């Protein structure tokens, strides 16, 4: 997927300056969260449908209306995500952490993410974790597309000197 196989063999540590422990353990927890809900309820929970299902509280548009049956548990799931991260922060982090990434990047990027995830039928958790875990070909394609485009966009942004 990423064309870095050759250099990886040469000097693998250069690509993992923070090691892999935090990433792998974090990933296991993310997967466990999805798994727990699945075992108990049969529901496969992604993060981005919450956007549209929550909009159904305030808009009657048919795109949002169809998510009414799931909107309540999706709010609960999202609150869980926020508080789960807070638990992490309280245990491991020194007070609140705030980003230095410029607000316009968060806002414009967020807007495009909001459009793209709903048109493209999934996000990093929907396609990336749940879809790939389902061996869904649609999700494999989705992940490859957004990963490559994101890398290209980030490289271009950096080349243009936008930092942070």
């Amino acid at each position, binding site marked *: 997927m990423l064309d870095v196989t050759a250099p990886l063999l040469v000097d693998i540590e250069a*690509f993992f*300056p923070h090691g*892999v422990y935090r990433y*792998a*353990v*974090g*990933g296991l927890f993310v*997967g466990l*969260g*999805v798994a*727990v*809900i699945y*075992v*108990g*309820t*049969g529901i496969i*929970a*992604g993060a981005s449908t919450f956007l*549209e299902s929550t909009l159904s509280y305030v*808009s009657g*548009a048919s*795109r*949002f209306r169809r998510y009414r049956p799931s909107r309540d*548990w999706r709010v*609960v799931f*999202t*609150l*869980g995500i926020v508080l789960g991260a*807070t638990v992490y922060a309280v245990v491991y*982090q020194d007070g*609140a952490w*705030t980003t*230095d*990434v410029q607000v316009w990047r*968060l*806002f414009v*990027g*967020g*807007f*495009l993410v*909001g459009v793209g*995830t*709903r048109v*493209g039928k999934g996000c*990093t*958790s929907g396609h*990336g974790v*749940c879809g790939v*875990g*389902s*061996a*869904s070909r*649609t999700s494999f*394609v*989705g*992940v490859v597309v957004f990963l490559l*485009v994101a890398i290209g*966009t*980030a490289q271009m942004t950096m080349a243009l000197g936008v930092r*942070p």
Partner: protein
Amino acid sequence: MPLVFAGGLLFGFGLGFSHMARPEVVLSFLYLDDLGLVFVMFGAAAVTAATFFVVPRLRERAPLTGGSYGRRLKPFDRKVVVGGGVFGVGWGLSGICPGSAYASLGIGNYPMLAGIIGMFLGAYVQGVWRSKTSADAVEAPD
């Protein structure tokens, strides 16, 4: 509901622990400076893959809802590529995706509100647009 909440807690804790809740870390991955994030996605997908494979072979129906155990399979069409492309531009520009943005609030990152408002606006605009163009309105809910 309590179980959904517990699942969310684990999910959010994982995003915090992996540092994916920090846009800087996602961007350093996309700059190809630190490829560790691969382990988040594949670590998580390995767990879900095992769960989605094993659980349906052990049980017929979910104990709490009586729902059946399926997999997340969605039909492929051009929208997956177009939407994925738009998502990729946004993700590459900001380093945020929906799950990590919610978790980011949890670690105290209040500027992320700008990103979340952006996501809601984006979802709203495409939803209203697609509700009007109607072809999607009859699509089965997921």
